């Protein structure tokens, strides 16, 4: 997977991870992938739901040492 951009949203509380994700993804071309790092557990459900409502595709997510990582493909 080619990642076009990495967004570091670690340490930020809701709603900032999604606010930043939304901003970061606007700069991408359709089909490009954004990698997101956050420490906010609430972002797991919210990013999945946000992807559904915007049409962007959440390719996968992982957790490592309390950091949640997401890969989001722009619609």
């Amino acid at each position, binding site marked *: 997977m080619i990642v076009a951009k990495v967004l570091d949203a670690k340490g930020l*509380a*809701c*709603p*900032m991870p*999604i*606010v930043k994700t*939304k901003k970061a993804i606007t700069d991408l071309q359709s089909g490009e992938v954004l990698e997101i790092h956050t420490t906010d*557990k*609430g972002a797991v*459900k*919210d990013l999945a*739901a*946000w992807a559904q*409502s915007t049409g962007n595709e959440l390719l996968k997510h992982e957790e490592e040492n309390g950091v949640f990582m997401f890969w989001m493909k722009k619609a």
Partner: protein
Amino acid sequence: MKAMTSKEVTKKIFNKEPLFILDVRNDTDFQDWKIEGENFEHLNIPYFDLLDGVEEILDQLPTDKEVLVVCAKEGSSVMIAEMLDEAGRDVSYLEGGMKAWSEHLEPVKVGELKDGGSLYQFVRIGKGCLSYAVVSNGEAALIDATRMTDVYLDFAKEQGVEIKHVFDTHLHADHISGGRKIAEATGATYWLPPKDADEVSFQYQPLEDGNVVKIGKTSIDINALYTPGHTIGSTSFVVDGKYLLSGDILFIDSIGRPDLAGKAEDWVADLRDSLYNRYKQLSDDLLVLPAHFMIIDELNENGSVSEKLGTLFAKNHGLNIEDEAEFRRLVTENLPPQPNAYQEIRETNMGKISPDIENQREMEIGPNRCAVR
């Protein structure tokens, strides 16, 4: 834009006031668990669908009643409330979000004791947990205290009483007990039913059928009554010959579920015997005070949760199933989902794991789900 506290929302529920709740959490969390009141209305639009503006939802928000924006931890509701404020709307946000809501305890006086003492119920309105303080002659006993231990310690200070005994009716699976912590802080005796305490890692006083504990100089008796079924150790209390603290065995509109320790089939017979034989022998005039409520309709006028035992024998469906096989089916099949993180909660209450406060909060998120209807 202003903050509204959980206490203020609780007052609105007790007083049946109207409130319009704009819940900006995701749909799944909203469906799972929300703030309910008899005259509350809800609109669920996730905050992440409103990042471009709130104009589209303005016509869905009333202007003739109070609007409260709610989210999980406060951050998103502040953002949305600010946007609504800029659009000229007068709205509030819930201080601390659903996390604070889950932790709020509202003390309500349930009644008097013979010697002038009182019995208080602590209504954990967001989660449906009920705990109790028996207060008499400068002393207090707590039953099924939650992990928000400061509330009970402050209460004791205000009342000018010393906490002498702390009881848990059973090993809880839906919330973290504050019993042990309070006992450590006050020097009180911590009582647990030994059959639920096989695996606990700490010292406790075994709570057994027939134990009588006196509170205060005169005799407020707390009589333990072994009533297994929700757990194998579940114990009820008769306080002052007048109140039946039924733990998670009997609720107002439902009965305890026997499966949270993984033993539904084994414990059905115990549950039936406790409800249909042991409780049946008690006075109909006892006021039942359970450890949970499930729906807001169960609240009395003053916000407390209670009902006469005789009334429950007449009206509670779970006490009126004559056929044993049907009873078995009801309590072992089609059970509601289990409480969030119930295994970890049980292990925490056994002292096996010690999650930090953030994790404890996460574990307890959601409704209690200890009943079967």
